[in-house]
């Protein structure tokens, strides 16, 4: 019985999301069809990235232990950890949510919340999309915005870390 409840708990979000679709099917079937279509399109789009992320998780489980993570992204890591977190956030591909499992895994190994927050914030800085943004808003706007976003990512990391510590006390 305990195992059954654990399984329900593991799938609760998926169950709620599916129930929402069933509810919509009865009241707004066109929204249901559109939602399913978009879901499938997204799923096909992100599936390769999810596989890459799972491969990264496997490789970190295999080669990176708590000691290494602690040294590079732990309590005593220096400014280089910020630079690495910013760079990896900018360079990482795909939607932000596919990276949650890997980041949760790295946190279990000792990565500080601030670096996770910095990584997630910098997912918003996408070099490959900058030409499109320049087309709509001009190069000066894009340069200024990108500069402030990188600064804001560090502020975000500091805020997250401080508040996590305060709440933990």
């Amino acid at each position, binding site marked *: 019985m305990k195992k059954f409840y654990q399984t329900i708990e593991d799938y609760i979000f998926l169950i709620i999301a599916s129930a929402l679709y069933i509810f919509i099917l009865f009241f707004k079937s066109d*929204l249901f069809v559109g939602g*399913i279509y*978009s879901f499938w399109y997204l799923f096909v789009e992100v599936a390769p990235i999810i596989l890459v992320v799972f491969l990264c998780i*496997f490789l970190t489980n*295999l080669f990176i232990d708590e000691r290494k993570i602690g040294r590079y992204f732990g309590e005593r890591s220096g400014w280089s950890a910020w630079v690495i977190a910013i760079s990896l956030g900018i360079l990482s591909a795909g939607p*932000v949510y596919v990276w949650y499992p890997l980041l949760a895994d790295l946190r279990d190994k000792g990565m500080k919340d601030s670096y996770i927050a910095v990584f997630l*914030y910098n997912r918003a800085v996408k070099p490959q999309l900058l030409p499109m943004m320049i087309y709509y808003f001009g190069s000066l706007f894009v340069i*200024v915005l990108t500069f402030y976003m990188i600064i804001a990512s560090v502020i975000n990391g500091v805020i*997250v870390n401080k508040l996590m510590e305060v709440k933990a006390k």
Partner: protein
Amino acid sequence: MEKKQVISALKKTVSGIKKALPDLVGVLLLIGLVLQLDFGKVSGYFSGNQVIDTIFGASLGSIAAGNPITSYILGGELLDKGISLVAVTAFMLAWVTVGIVQLPGEILIMGRKFAIIRNSSSFLLAIVVSFAVVATLRALQ
């Protein structure tokens, strides 16, 4: 490398996948629904007050999901309709840094405290950065 190490890493990875995959599929299902909303029709809800519009823009961007390119196109359309650059910037910034639709998934995988603090902080920063960007642009031009 020992075979035992590889098997142990594989077991840990499979366990992680089993835990995270249902949540990721749930997030994709919710995003599928949000993508059905027409954010292009919202320009009428902006009031003309820069502060209120910026908060509204950031709120709208927080709910929205999808490719950032869509936010640029919508942002361009909003600018054409006379919405302030600060509000449009807040809208685009919140679109890429805050995730209300992904929040349940983020809570389940990353933890409630972390997800709520990170998203709240990103929301406030979207507003602050928008004002800072436009002020800097004005100073530079």
